[in-house]
């Protein structure tokens, strides 16, 4: 490992070590900072500095984008000190480690799924903490990402005229990710598919739901061009307006 092996074993007071690590952090030398914080804990496992150092060490790793190592360090801290005052921050930082590793919608989304789980846990365990608010904002984005993946796959199947496969993918977006920005397009795609299949009144019904919930959207305009003026015959039940679909301010946790 790094050259300066010998001074690692010099026993130094906890506070001095901690401050040295802190200054390294401020200079942006995150890798060295995380090593220095580890040193605090190794030499003085019983000092109050040790616990602070564990969290700060993880934060240094996070800043150095060593997300996996930060994740491991945080999990160890959470197991060792469930009662610690910084525990909410530890859960939140662990969620951020996953969040940073999200890749774009055409690629593997397991990091996105883990991020969604971790953010939901932050909100469940510490609903009043200041981290919960930011966690929910980020949760909306991870949901949008997961919906984005479903859309990518749906469009692929539509493009290679696998209409059944495409239909089920777009339905999943409407049923499971009804808060995301992809719902209008998903509804429109169903109008397209139902028209291709010859299920014309189903196409009209979906167009009605689209128009009712997203009247201004371009997708409704396209649906209109496709299906024409949506004539709701009287005896048909009104298009179901799912509470989840209408853009609703108050937000209940899934």
């Amino acid at each position: 490992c790094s050259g300066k092996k010998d001074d690692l074993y010099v026993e130094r007071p906890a506070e001095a070590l901690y401050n040295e690590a802190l200054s390294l952090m401020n200079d942006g030398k995150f890798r060295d900072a995380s090593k220095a914080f580890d040193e605090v804990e190794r030499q003085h496992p019983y000092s109050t500095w040790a616990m602070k150092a564990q969290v700060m060490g993880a934060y240094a790793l996070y800043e150095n984008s060593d997300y996996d190592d930060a994740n491991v360090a945080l999990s160890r801290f959470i197991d060792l000190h469930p009662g610690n005052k910084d525990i909410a921050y530890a859960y939140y930082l662990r969620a951020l480690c996953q969040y940073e590793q999200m890749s774009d919608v055409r690629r593997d989304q397991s990091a996105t799924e883990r991020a969604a789980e971790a953010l939901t846990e932050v909100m469940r365990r510490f609903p009043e903490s200041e981290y919960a608010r930011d966690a929910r904002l980020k949760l909306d984005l991870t949901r949008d990402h997961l919906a984005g993946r479903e859309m990518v796959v749906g469009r692929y199947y539509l493009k290679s005229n696998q209409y059944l496969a495409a239909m089920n993918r777009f339905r999943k977006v409407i049923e499971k990710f009804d808060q995301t920005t992809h719902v209008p397009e998903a509804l429109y795609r169903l109008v397209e598919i139902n028209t291709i299949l010859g299920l014309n009144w189903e196409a009209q019904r979906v167009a009605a739901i689209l128009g009712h919930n997203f009247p201004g959207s371009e997708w409704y305009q396209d649906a209109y061009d496709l299906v024409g003026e949506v004539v709701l015959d009287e005896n048909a039940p009104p298009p179901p307006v799912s509470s989840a679909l209408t853009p609703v301010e108050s937000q209940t946790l899934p």
Partner: protein
Amino acid sequence: TGAPGFPVPEAFAQSRASAHSGAVVSRIIVEGAERIEPETVRTYMTLREGEPYSASLADASLKALFDTGLFADVTIRLEGSSLVVKVIENPIINQVVFEGNKRVPTTALEGEIQLRPRVVFTEWRAQEDVQRILDLYRRSGRFAVSVEPKLIKLDQNRVDVVFEINEGPSTTVKGISFVGNSRFKAGELREVIMTSEETWYKFLSSTDTYDPDRVNYDRELLRRFYLKRGYADFEVRSAIAELSPDRQSFFITFTLHEGERYRFGTIEVESNLENLDPAVLYKMIEVKNGDWYDAKKVEDISESISEEVANLGYAFVDVRPRVTRDAENRVISIVFEVNEGPRVFVDRIDIQGNVRTHDEVIRREFLIAEGDAFNSSKIRRSRQNVQDLGFFETVDVSNQPSPAAADRTTVVVDVKERSTGEVSFGIGWSSSVGALVEVGVRERNFLGRGQDLRASVSWAQRRSQLDLGFTEPYFLDRKLAAGVDAYAVERDLQDESSYDYRSIGGGVRFGWNYNSAWSHSVRYNVEKMKIEHVAWDASRFIRDQKRNTTTSLVGHVLTYDRRDSRLNPTEGYFVSLSNDVAGLGGTEAFLRSDIKAAYYLPVGEILDWNPAWNFNLQGQAGYIFGLGEDVAINQRYFLGGTNLRGFESAGAGTRDPQTEDALGGNWIVTGTAELGIPLGLPEDIGITGRLFTDVGLSGKPDKYDAKLMDWDASPRVSVGFGLTWVSPVGPIAVDFGFPIMKKDYDETETLRLSFGSRF
């Protein structure tokens, strides 16, 4: 202190209700906790302040605290109304050291054990680690090992852990014997199994150590060996390994029950599928009545029948061989029952692990889409398609029952990507172009879109070349690979034909498959070439060649490929025919046809020898025909070098006797037979050996003049042997070719070597 910050576990809620009304615990005092916060101790305890004391709760808390593994000892006692919890914390590990480990490196040991610096030390974890170290040694064949964990106390309740290891002598397999093998001699059976006896010349071998898993695998190998030869009742009754008293050698004894050898009886096909006539499926049966019974063939036939039925549009196929055994006259007859499989549909295909590759690049290789019927043979072919992309180390396809409904399953595709981007730098030497430096950038999965981008520059003593290439495998979202190439070459052919040439060219190509075997590609290519530095004493026939030529040609290649893999084929064959027509513009006009064929036979597998035995036969023939003019020298065929080992490049074709310049010819036929041979070296060294014989003959150029040119249609033949070592630097190949039939004016060359760069 207030109620705990977390939701209270249910278990606690019930037990509180049942506690009898003991003294109420006003305060919990934690003694002896240095590193662990008192608050943490309280959170793990099921007894809370302000609640009544009960013995069962105290025990539960005691157990909970021990389970955390943080404490060496915990005692709880009631003093008045406060509960005193006295803990002795387990020490923290400062560092872990191994002593006495020679055979197994420290890093391997560290990877195996749980104890780490800054982790809590507990007695049972230490014992577990001792066991892990012993297992590690056993796997590498050393059974006489002893491991002793020692603790060195440090201040602040920290310890250093030292594992003292005494490796002892290595234990090898001294003898393997068989009981009950009347049909095959022990020597033959030893060739079949992996475990081998320790012998002096196999000092590098790793299979002469005793490994229980390998012995189990040996039982399977023996079973397959016998079943392939018709011994349907065969079983390995036991495989016992005895350790010698001095614990240095193992003796393994396999007790076998061979049973009788069976032949195939009648073989039929029955179909329970709506309007599927079984007669159509008989062509799938390769064995006939009277052949020796072979269990593997039965499996293969079931597989090919189910694939054929699926191709006929039946979604759910389940083929079961019904075996009836006639012990007296030792005949097994089989009825292949074709039933409707369970009606299960694919709910979703979830792709994961594709950190770089786009989802579509993998999904488009699948023969089934979501909502289709679940068909295992199509899924197997789809998995092979994804594997053949070459972007992934592993492609695991598994299916899990889907929550949606009972007759739904989710197919999970888990890929592990490998680096498809290569920034390669190669130094090499080869007989045809001399010393060589090559710099290349290759990305086979450009931007994760499955596109292939290639750029390479190479400087060699006798050739420098620039190559650029781009391929989109799914052009216009169709199964149509489209590519564009550009290249520039400077070649020094002074040795061969006393001239140099410089050329620059480019082209467009399109390729597609008709089905899994037939594929086709067409291309348009234009190339400007300049011949220069023609030596003053060069052959007259070279001096009168046109200096500047432009070749604009259209060509196609039709291929029939039945090999088991394109990368390194071991079985099957392929034939490809290509025709090029030059003359749509440009200065050259000719018609060229080439045919290539190769046949691969996994001899080792078929005869159950070492799999390194493999045989391949390759052939090539080419013919070029000038359209209204002579064929220029650089379009002609040259025999010798890579296409005919044992001869210099262009060393075996037409030659101008005075100047010894090679003049090439208008047709060529070459063939090579190669036999891969095992060298007895362990796999991981990566050295493979081969014996080969090359045959080649080539034709005359236009305007052939017997008086001024040496040429002979008689074939040139060479034999030789070669080695390839896949070294960390790159593949190193050396061939020793010895011409046995040649003309006196041919130029021979025994050693051909190339290393370090990707030829």
